[in-house]
């Protein structure tokens, strides 16, 4: 049976995107270069984590 779920919203791809956002957030939190990056690190990590939690329920 073929799934009608849009290809772009398939779990694998969306989880990969969420992982990239989480990794970017962690890097922004720990980097020594820019205070602005540090300031926006939490919002980035939080968005990535929320996205991961949601998309992990999507079909493959």
């Amino acid at each position, binding site marked *: 049976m073929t799934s009608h779920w849009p290809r772009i919203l398939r779990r694998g791809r969306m989880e990969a995107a969420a992982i990239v956002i*989480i990794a970017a957030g962690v890097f922004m939190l*720990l980097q020594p270069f820019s*205070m602005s990056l*540090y*300031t926006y690190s*939490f919002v980035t*990590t939080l968005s990535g984590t929320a996205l991961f*939690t949601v998309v992990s329920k999507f079909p493959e």
Partner: protein
Amino acid sequence: MSETTVPLTIAEHAARATPDAVARQVRGLSDRAIAWLFISPTILLLLAINIFPLVWTVRLSFTNFRANRPNAKILGVGIDNYVSVLTDPDVWAAMQSTAHFLFWTILLQTALGFALAWLVDRRFKSHGFWTTVILVPMMLSPAVVGNFWTFLYQPQIGLWNYAVQFLTGIPAASFSMIGSVKLARWAIVVVDTWMWTPYVMLICLAGLRSIPGYIYEAAEVDRASPWRQFWTITVPMALPFIMLAVLFRGIENFKMFDMVNLLTNGGPGSTTEVASITLKREAFEKWRTGYSSAFAIILFVTVFGLANIYVKALNRVKSR
């Protein structure tokens, strides 16, 4: 005629031991209801010791609450605590100390752990004994490790300084690992690497032992050199396990508290003040409970995000 006795099963023993009043209540319940009855104490405990403190911390992070002034009026401050933490240069400095600790411990533990796993996988004579010896540090409590490394690092009587003197000629009394601004950061890296390299070695060993032998046999038939076999078979096939070890150690070291607290307590100055030490100071020395709750939530979300990646990597390893 003598009566034969049939041995009772555990379930029958339990049924006989159950008081009549309880038995009457349980009888007639569905399997699902009995299952809920058994797991509900665990769920209640989980709610009480995990979920409730988390929800309470989130609530406190939006207030000006101070635990040393329980009778003071608690005011909502919105996201001010989060803004303060994320614009505080001292907290940013603590994050950089954490980053230094994370980067070097993960790098050294992965390199040494994989090298040790590769050696142990050769199955040389008495490799079982040496594996046990290598695993001893990770079996010790971090409190014990922190205490005895404090003695090992003593400039006057510590073995570490004498070992450095023996190897490099630098006088033992001329430097202090945990008292020096330059060396203290490396002192905690050395101890953590000493303690947790065996753990990384174990995970890498599992990866190496999961590689089927016929792949190497096929490579030998194709006349691939040992060097080429290592880079094209061993490393790629062990990589998911190495990633797993890196993520696990990353999460653990991001939260590192006990060992650093015992070894340096964040000093000298704030050189080794990793994030969890700063959090402790804000919460229990300065008593800024609302602020430290916001800081704790920021650390929690970061660890939770990393844990998601860890679980994803773990599932990939399982499906191999």
